[in-house]
């Protein structure tokens, strides 16, 4: 089961109202390499992965939900004080017409989230390589997002998330080695 903790993993501050940036951040909310996809991918893979890696998938999958909350907080703070004029100018009219200021799981281009973003192959190495690739793709997206804003407060939170992708990638690489070592040991007997 899960417990919710009433705090963010890392502070999210923004220095201005910026609905245009909020729209771009949706890539990490409901996009293919976003935090929702990451959380669901890892937690779902737990049931077919060797026991030695279940703890890692559980913890990283759980951390991704904390990241999802940080992205939602960014979008919320960047749009809460926006006027209709600012929303129109930022190209958010289509979103506003359907959702008002509600968050919705899409990518930055407005494409709704789909389960097709989440791979589950059943082969431990195939799944872990998928996870490493997902972390590297998310790291790249965070870099593009950092480049797309001049808000230093927002950049600070995005840099934290970018660094987390690097750590997760490293841990998944170690998990690959653990599984390989295990297979090699078994061959001896």
């Amino acid at each position, binding site marked *: 089961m899960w*417990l919710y903790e*009433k*705090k963010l*993993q890392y502070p999210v501050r923004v220095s201005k109202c910026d609905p245009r940036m909020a729209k771009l951040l949706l890539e990490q909310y409901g996009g293919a390499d976003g935090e929702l996809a990451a959380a669901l991918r890892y937690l779902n893979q737990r049931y077919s992965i060797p026991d030695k890696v279940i703890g890692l998938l559980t913890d990283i999958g759980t951390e991704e939900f904390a990241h999802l*909350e940080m992205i939602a*907080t960014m979008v919320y703070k960047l749009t809460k004080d926006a006027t209709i004029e600012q929303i129109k100018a930022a190209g958010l009219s289509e979103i506003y017409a359907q959702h008002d200021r509600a968050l919705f799981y899409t990518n930055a281009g407005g494409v709704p989230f789909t389960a097709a973003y989440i791979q589950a192959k059943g082969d431990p190495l195939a799944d872990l390589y998928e996870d490493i690739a997902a972390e590297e793709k998310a790291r790249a997206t965070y870099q593009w997002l950092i480049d797309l804003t001049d808000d230093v407060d927002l950049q600070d939170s995005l840099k934290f998330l970018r660094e987390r992708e690097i750590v997760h990638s490293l841990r998944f690489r170690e998990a690959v080695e653990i599984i390989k070592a295990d297979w090699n040991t078994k061959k001896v007997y």
Partner: protein
Amino acid sequence: MSEANTKPIDAQYYKLLEELQMVDFGLLELSLYLNTHPNDMKAIQQLNQWSEQRHKIAQQYELDYGPLLQFGHSYSKFPWQWIESPWPWQV
């Protein structure tokens, strides 16, 4: 925030929250590391040490600003504190 039941927050709130976030970050990093390095005795000792420190900081935070966890993992004063604002995205 127009909700009636909003707890006032001050500079001390942000200081304590940041302290908690810092120690939790250390604990998270150690935990993920230990998942792939389960035989690192020093890391386990450090985690247990920080865990004790975490407990103290969380206790102080909850005393001043309300529960971090629901379902009986945190205590509540009267009236029921869990539903009080601000929520994490509102600060």
